[in-house]
């Protein structure tokens, strides 16, 4: 690549080489050899390129541009995209007083603003919508709704308020916003809240000014000048995605510009200006994606990526895959992974490096697809409805989640004999319409011998829920047939749903010895469908119980009632009536006794 670039340098005014960037973002030791305004075909010796780097740096500025897009799917189904464009303007910090007229990647308008108003740090943001922290988490770059501007001036400024007023007017011209409404009535000087984010140790808050305009509206007129500040404009790299018709059709949109002095390298031998242009946007599941949890770059931005910005040293897309197994799958897959600790959370990212040609594939375009995991196409549930211990209803619900294919399933129910099923109450409804099964095999139960068996072939319409209901009556069993814990209830085994589910991916019908075991359990007969068996929940049903402490009492009492009946009948049948003579008083009976002895006639 080194030699390639040097040959190209004959024709291009600005010459640069792409830097090798390590995964932690630091710049490799290999330096650039920049040629400026001079065509040369001097072959640079690679071996001592590091040593000779200083000899080639004339007054050439070493600007750098990095662009990055972070995509994070949120749990509510929305998706958060955060663009950051970072330009490093290598200008000597201490010599800021000298007139700067040499701009390369850094936008001239901002550079002039910085030098004219002696600005040390400038942060301006325009936001539409409110960031919902509890639903979306923490944003990378927070911002309040409306416009916000806070500026640290150099401590050499004598009239800060005057600078502030002029600065706001100039910025409102640059960004096409009504920042001229910022005046002393809405400006404050926070003493502790907004410490400088860049280099510098002066913390005299007299040089800080902070103002917000919550009423400020953000629209295409603000986006266009913002995009113009980018080195590649909106023509190459990640900024081609910034199309306003999609960006403003979102739940949250925030664009910001942050300028601050930073260190050039780790040892901080020299300083540079850093310009960060950030754009945060949250796309809503329902307005942008019609309720389907499928996102792609095309769906979000109505564009795909074809190349990186040629001026960028690094152009990367990070997709947050920390929640990958549960939420979605990512297409195309990339081998690059990166882990980062951000906002107190360690997250894993899939990295797409746009500077590499293979990222774009054969079609020379990159469209990332985030799709919900393949939901199971067939799913069944079962429950008991009704109240009381006399009757009930078994409901079996079968879900077909295939979006457009209907397929038949075989439902098998085995219900124990003590729940008497009434097959004339069997109803099968799909999408609230009757769905008659094409095959029913029913074997009714024989008390204490065999259970009910019900098998049905049901055609499931696509993307639907089918409900099978049947009524039953609960039987009273003999007291010895109850388990020791009768109030726990009786179990009814699971229903079995067997089906050949149409497959979205062609199945492999060849059987090979070295197939993994988990894919060779069920023989595959045809390519377009696979066999699946779904079990529902078992049911727990209560039966009415007799009183287990009462066998002797019950036998006695019932036999008593039968005996009363028997006794009454016996009485009725064997009782004879005799006419009863009225009895004589005692003295007459004694007299009769004596008369009998004497043999004379008795008294009456």
């Amino acid at each position, binding site marked *: 690549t080194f030699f390639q670039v040097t040959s190209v340098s004959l024709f291009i005014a600005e010459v640069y080489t792409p830097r090798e960037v390590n995964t932690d973002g630091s710049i490799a030791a290999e330096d650039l050899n920049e040629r400026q305004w001079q065509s040369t075909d001097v072959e640079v010796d690679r071996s001592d390129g590091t040593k000779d780097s200083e000899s080639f740096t004339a007054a050439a500025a070493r600007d750098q541009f990095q662009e990055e897009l972070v995509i994070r799917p949120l749990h509510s189904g929305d998706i958060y995209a955060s663009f950051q464009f970072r330009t490093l303007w290598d200008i000597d910090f201490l010599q800021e007083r000298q007139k700067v007229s040499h701009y390369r990647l850094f936008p001239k308008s901002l550079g002039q603003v910085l030098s004219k108003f002696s600005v040390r740090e400038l942060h301006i943001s325009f936001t539409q919508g409110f960031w919902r922290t509890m639903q979306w988490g923490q944003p990378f770059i927070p911002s309040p709704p409306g416009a916000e501007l806070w500026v640290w001036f150099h401590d050499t400024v004598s009239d800060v308020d005057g600078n502030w007023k002029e600065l706001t007017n100039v910025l409102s011209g640059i960004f096409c916003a009504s920042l001229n409404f910022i005046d002393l009535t809405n400006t404050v000087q926070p003493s502790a809240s907004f410490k400088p984010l860049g280099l510098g140790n002066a913390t005299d808050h007299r040089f800080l000014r902070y103002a917000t305009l919550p009423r400020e509206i953000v629209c295409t007129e603000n986006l266009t000048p913002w995009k113009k500040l980018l080195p590649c404009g909106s023509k190459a790299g990640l900024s081609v995605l910034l199309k306003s018709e999609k960006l403003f059709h979102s739940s949250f949109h925030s664009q910001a510009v942050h300028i601050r002095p930073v260190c050039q390298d780790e040892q901080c031998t020299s300083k540079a200006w850093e310009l960060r242009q950030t754009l945060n946007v949250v796309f809503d599941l329902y307005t942008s994606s019609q309720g389907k949890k499928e996102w792609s770059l095309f769906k979000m931005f109505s564009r795909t990526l074809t190349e990186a910005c040629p001026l960028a040293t690094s152009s990367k897309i990070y997709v947050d895959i920390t929640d990958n197994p549960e939420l979605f799958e990512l297409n195309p897959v990339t081998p690059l992974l990166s882990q980062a600790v951000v906002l107190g959370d360690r997250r894993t990212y899939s990295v797409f490096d746009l500077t590499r040609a293979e990222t774009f594939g054969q079609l020379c375009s990159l469209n990332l697809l985030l799709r919900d995991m393949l939901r199971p196409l067939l799913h069944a549930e079962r429950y008991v409805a009704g109240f009381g211990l006399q009757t009930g209803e078994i409901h079996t619900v079968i879900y077909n989640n295939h979006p457009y294919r209907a397929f038949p399933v075989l439902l098998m129910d085995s219900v124990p004999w003590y729940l*008497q099923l*009434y*097959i004339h109450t069997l109803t099968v409804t799909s999408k609230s319409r009757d769905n008659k099964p094409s095959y029913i095999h029913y074997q009714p139960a024989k008390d204490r011998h065999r259970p009910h068996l019900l098998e049905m072939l049901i055609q499931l319409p696509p993307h639907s829920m089918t409900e099978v209901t049947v009524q039953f009556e609960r039987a009273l069993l003999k*007291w010895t047939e109850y388990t020791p814990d009768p109030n726990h209830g009786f179990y009814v085994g699971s229903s079995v749903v067997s089906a050949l589910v149409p497959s979205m991916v062609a199945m492999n019908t060849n059987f090979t010895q070295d197939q993994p075991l988990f894919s060779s359990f069920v023989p595959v007969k045809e390519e377009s469908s696979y066999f699946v068996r779904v079990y529902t929940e078992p049911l727990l049903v209560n039966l009415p119980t007799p*009183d287990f402490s009462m*066998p002797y009492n*019950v*036998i006695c009492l019932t036999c008593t009632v039968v005996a009363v*009946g028997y006794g009454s009948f016996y009485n009725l049948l064997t009782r004879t009536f005799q006419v009863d003579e009225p009895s004589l008083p005692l003295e007459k009976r004694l007299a009769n006794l004596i008369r009998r002895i004497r043999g004379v006639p008795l008294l009456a």
Partner: protein
Amino acid sequence: MAAPLTLLLIVAVTIRAVLFRSSLAELILERVEVVSPLNAWKRVVEGLALLDLGVSPYSGDVFHETPLMIYLFHFMVDYAEIVFMVTDGLTAVALYLSIQTYNKNVFRKQKYALESDRYPADCLELLRSPKEMFYIPLKVAMFYLLNPFTILSCVAKSTCGLNNAIIALFILCTLKGSALLSGILLALATYQSIYPLTLFAPALLFFLQRLYIPVNLRRSSFWFFTLQYAFIYVGSLVVITGLSFFLLGSWDFIPSVYGFIFSVPDLTPNIGLFWYFFAEMFEHFRLFFICVFQINVFFYTIPLSIKLKEHPVFLIFMQIAIISIFKSYPTVGDVALYMAFLPAWSHLYRFLRNIFLVSCVLLACSALFPVLWHLWIYAGSANSNFYYAITLLFNFGQVKGPILISHFT
């Protein structure tokens, strides 16, 4: 007497029609006091549905009706309500006519007895006058049609109403003197549920009395007629059973219907004594007590026939009462049938002791049945003992009631 009877029929049909159309119909359809596993309408529909599915209704344990019921309801299932209302009307008319005939007989016998001076002087107040007896048939029909038990049984579409109709027609034919029809109807009643077998003896006694054949085991005329009648009866039974065989082509219905009645495998609560007894029975003694309880139904026939051979109609009443109380799956429809006969012996009421107590017991139990059922099954705050206690009391009251009457004939 046609006009009052017609009016009564219209009122009864109106009440039933109103109840059929109300929301109470579904509630009553499921009450265990009104329907039993033998005669529930839900099971009839289930049996027909099984037949439609190509499965024999007797292969499971849910359908216990005879095949002739399948024949009947296969065509009439859409008009079931009309069928049951017509059945009730038929029963009432049959009872009306039979009690009318019976009263004529009784009055005729009384007249002869009076003329031959067979009554002692102090029994004259027991004699009945035509004026008293004029309204008795209407009262009998009214007791049957407007009895809440009958209305409930009809609204629940319990096939007990059909059984009652067959028995009422049998009584009518017997009292009219047609031995052939009586034999056929008795065979049909026996075919439906086995217990009307015991009505053979009173019917025989009635015919013997009517034809002035003395009931003497040594006389050939007695045996001649008995064999004739038995032949009619058994022959009809065989024919009907054969017809049932040809409906489904198998003998499956015999264990399903008759085996079910005798062996009582289903312990669904009802107003009888069997269910809780056999729910709490020790396995070892189960067969013994099944035999005891079933013999108990048939056992009183011979002694009662001997005792009441002069009064065969009263014997029929007693037998029906015994069947209703002691059968394996009683319902209130069975109770309603024998209660309909009570006005026929209204001249004995002033001699009955405890009639007030018995009627109060029966009334209170009828009111408590649904309450305690709800507490046990739905509210969960009572248990099976509560319902069982009311069952005991109800049966005790029933046992005492007809016995009381029988004391004074």
